[in-house]
């Protein structure tokens, strides 16, 4: 039987406001427990929530960025349940009238095609606090620093058909909220996380299968693994004649499996109703226009522009615009090329170096592009040396690594190490002659048709020149000489 996977995500992005959504407490991460919890956060008798206008602005920004409808009149509702990290006994959220309705984002699939994922809604809500268990001798502690932190919950339609698609969608939203500067995107600190609704159905079936909701996934890798595990579990269950029960599940990263947390029967009846302490959020066209004017160039627009201006492939443009910082870095590298008017630095070479060699070094040392040890201008100088044939593209990799490690300019490294490539034809010819003379049998084989040996001669000549021979020139001369 052939199964189809159906996935919808509920992404929680913590909004990057200075203070909480309904109180004046700071939202900074990492403060000592309860240092950022005032009487409103502690739900003291008599206190009242007051909406943070900045959180509204950020949600509207998000709505406009995904071409959604910004609701002119949205309502805060109370979601009632008891838990020690929920001081009021209810969470203030939005239920029937969320601030953002509809909208969509495009994701690129592994085969390079583009798929549109629709967003059902996005609403504002407050985060809960945290229960602490460690070092409390069997007791539970409650830290309310996070209680009241503003979140935007972004709910997708169940339109993703694989874990890879779900990850691509989540990455796209991640990119977007960082472009918009409404969320720091820090997944380790929980600023960006998701719940995944996963079900399977027979291919061709219209009706959705029973879903399980996997809670609180806070890395792209976990999202992929958890969904894949869950899909396999559900298929195995169904093929074994069993049934999937609607329930909430937790992903255990250590064991790589999902586990039941509570079933639908045990689920809370949240008794949502409009919060009488807060007025409806009224948004007019002027406000929307003002926020719209403040939107930065968005990832898709930027990628489009990079393709058009620099002739990049869709893939390259997609990778380079994954973060605004990366795209900025790339564009700065190209801008600096203006200081080398006689040299043409190809945008493709720049893209390859930024994504490839530089990307490798960033990864190796766990450094963000904004903290790169090689500044864009320094990279431009290196690329200029490739373009003017001072060094080969291959050598550039070693030069870049030395620049990264030693903090020196490309020219200084090339000079100090004598890495300037040989373009002088007579020197290359001399080296070729010596290699041919030393390998008569290979020469004979080559000439009798064993073309593959060309590579052998290239290698030997490169070795003889310590890798400094200009590869294009070398190929050209070698071909001539070998054919006699």
């Amino acid at each position, binding site marked *: 039987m052939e199964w189809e996977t159906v996935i919808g995500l509920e992404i929680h992005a913590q909004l990057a406001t200075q203070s909480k959504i309904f109180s004046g407490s700071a939202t900074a991460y990492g403060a000592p427990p309860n240092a950022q919890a005032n009487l409103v956060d502690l739900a003291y*008798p*008599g206190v009242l929530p007051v909406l943070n206008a900045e959180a509204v602005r950020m949600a509207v920004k998000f709505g406009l960025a995904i071409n959604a409808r910004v609701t002119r009149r949205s309502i805060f509702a109370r979601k*009632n349940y008891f838990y020690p990290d929920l001081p009021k006994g209810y969470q203030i959220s939005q239920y029937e009238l969320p601030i953002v309705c509809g909208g969509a984002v495009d994701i690129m699939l592994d085969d390079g095609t583009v798929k549109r994922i629709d967003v059902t809604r996005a609403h504002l809500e407050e985060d809960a606090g945290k229960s602490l268990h460690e070092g409390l001798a069997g007791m539970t502690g*409650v830290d309310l620093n996070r209680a009241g932190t503003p979140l935007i919950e972004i709910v997708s339609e169940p339109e993703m058909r694989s874990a890879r698609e779900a990850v691509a969608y989540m990455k796209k939203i991640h990119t977007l909220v960082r472009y918009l500067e409404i969320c720091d995107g820090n997944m380790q600190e929980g600023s960006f996380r998701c719940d995944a609704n996963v079900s399977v159905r027979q291919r061709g079936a219209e009706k959705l299968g029973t879903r399980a909701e996997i809670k609180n996934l806070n890395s792209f890798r976990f999202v992929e693994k958890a969904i894949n595990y869950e899909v396999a579990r559900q298929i195995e269950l169904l093929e074994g004649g069993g049934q999937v029960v609607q329930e909430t599940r937790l992903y255990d990263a250590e064991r790589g499996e999902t586990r039941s947390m509570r079933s639908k029967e045990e689920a809370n009846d949240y*008794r949502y*109703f409009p919060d009488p302490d807060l007025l409806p959020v009224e948004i007019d066209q002027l406000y929307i226009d003002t926020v719209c004017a403040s939107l930065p160039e968005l990832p898709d627009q930027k990628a489009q522009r990079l393709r058009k201006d620099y002739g990049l492939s869709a893939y390259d443009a997609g990778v380079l615009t994954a973060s605004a910082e990366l795209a900025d870095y790339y564009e700065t590298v190209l801008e600096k090329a203006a200081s080398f008017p006689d040299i043409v630095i190809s945008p493709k070479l720049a893209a390859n170096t930024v994504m490839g060699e530089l990307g490798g070094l960033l990864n190796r040392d766990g450094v963000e592009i904004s903290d790169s040890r090689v500044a864009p201008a320094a990279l431009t100088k290196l690329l200029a040396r490739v373009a003017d044939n001072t060094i080969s593209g291959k050598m550039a990799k070693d030069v870049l690594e030395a620049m990264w490690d030693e903090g020196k300019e490309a020219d200084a490294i090339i000079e100090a190490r004598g890495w300037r490539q040989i373009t002088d034809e007579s020197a290359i010819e001399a080296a070729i002659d010596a290699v041919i003379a030393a390998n008569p049998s290979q020469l004979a084989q080559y000439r009798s048709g064993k073309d593959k040996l060309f590579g052998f001669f290239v290698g030997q000549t490169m070795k003889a020149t310590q890798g400094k021979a200009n590869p294009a020139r070398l190929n050209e001369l070698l071909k001539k000489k070998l054919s006699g």
Partner: protein
Amino acid sequence: MSALHDKSVAELSAALRARQVSSVEVTQAFLERVTRHQADLNAFISITAEAALAEAAQADARLRSQDAGPLTGVPIAHKDIFCTRGEKTTCGSRMLANFVSPYDATVVERLRAAGVVMLGKTNMDEFAMGSSNETSFFGPVRNPWDVARVPGGSSGGSAVAVAARLAPAATATDTGGSIRQPAALCGVTGLKPTYGRVSRFGMIAFASSLDQGGLITRSAEDAALLLGAMAGFDERDSTSVELPVPDYSGALGQPLKGLKIGVLKEFFDNGLDPAIEQHIRAALDLLHAQGAVIKDVSLPHLPLSVPTYYVVAPAECSSNLARFDGVRYGHRCDKPRDLLDLYQRSRGEGFGAEVKRRIMTGTYVLSAGYYDAFYLKAQRVRQLISNDFERAFHEVDVVIGPTTPTAAFELGAKTSDPVTMYLNDIYTIGANLAGLPAISVPCGLAQGLPTGMQIIGPHFGEERLLNVAHRYQLETDWHRRTPPGFA
């Protein structure tokens, strides 16, 4: 010169500013009465004598240095629903029996800033849920007109404190009649302002969309003085309204000529005590004689106000009271076995029967499958009632009717049947559902017990209400009557 405790706020203000008497003397006089009558009336939950005398001494310093406002040095009592920094705020509940608030409610803060001295915290129905003051964890309050009778509720302590001359005025709150009904039953003046006129910050919530802080005073004149100091926008309460606070005292005297008064047809129903009806009719004649035009108005949906209220208010209360969970403050059960046990026993022990009844009712009406049939329908009816009032105020300036169907009833008379108890608020609930200002003024005695006339106005029509009440009180002396033995 009358005794200190028999002076109104206005008279005390004048005497203090003329330095005829000091705030410490006034405060001592009232504290002495508060203490003397605590055993027979039980009007207070906390008597904050020490702090009161210190505040009075400060007020006297301000009075001496000519740095005083009209309320500087005037002692009043606060309903124990308003948070008061450093003092117990119990809300009449075991749940908060030992709760000391770390902050002042906006109402308390503003009155403090105006120089008012706090005598103590008045008794009330638990979490303001009740119409007889019998649900208080601290015991019932007794009506000074007849100590076998209830003072009404939930602001029974505040009403009794003013009626028995234990305080010249007291703050109170009104969710379904909790200011006006006890004011009527105790023969004092009770003002519930427009929803949003007075900040709810620091006022422990019962039903957020209905709760409104107000006053119990001896006269409309005193209410005008105090409301001016209490009212106004508060950035800590999103539902408070950003409108300037008018000069309520300045508007008191305007003549009633041409005033259009609507007589609420639905209020003169079968349940109304004929003696009360007689008093209201007499009052209308008196207002008519002053130039007011009287006409009948009908609010067809008003009879639905009690069932509507008993869906909306419990729904909000069930959620508002969820924070009392034994985790951060308030009553916590002894040695909880686990989390569920902590919740169940802390709340089970901390709340009284009426509060539990309303939490359960509210939980029920908000539950999946019942929400539409109860909560949503109630909201729709609430809108209809609101529309009825709005239509009426196109025709008339104020509407008048009785505050309660009967005078004070005996303790225990209605405790066994909550619905009978709820019906005592039948005339007052409409103003809460529509968010309108309303005032109850004493308008007679029925078998020796006070009766109240209710005047309801359009949104932010407090000036007019106080004006009508004041003109009425200039012509009558019902509001000056003192319960026998408390003069």
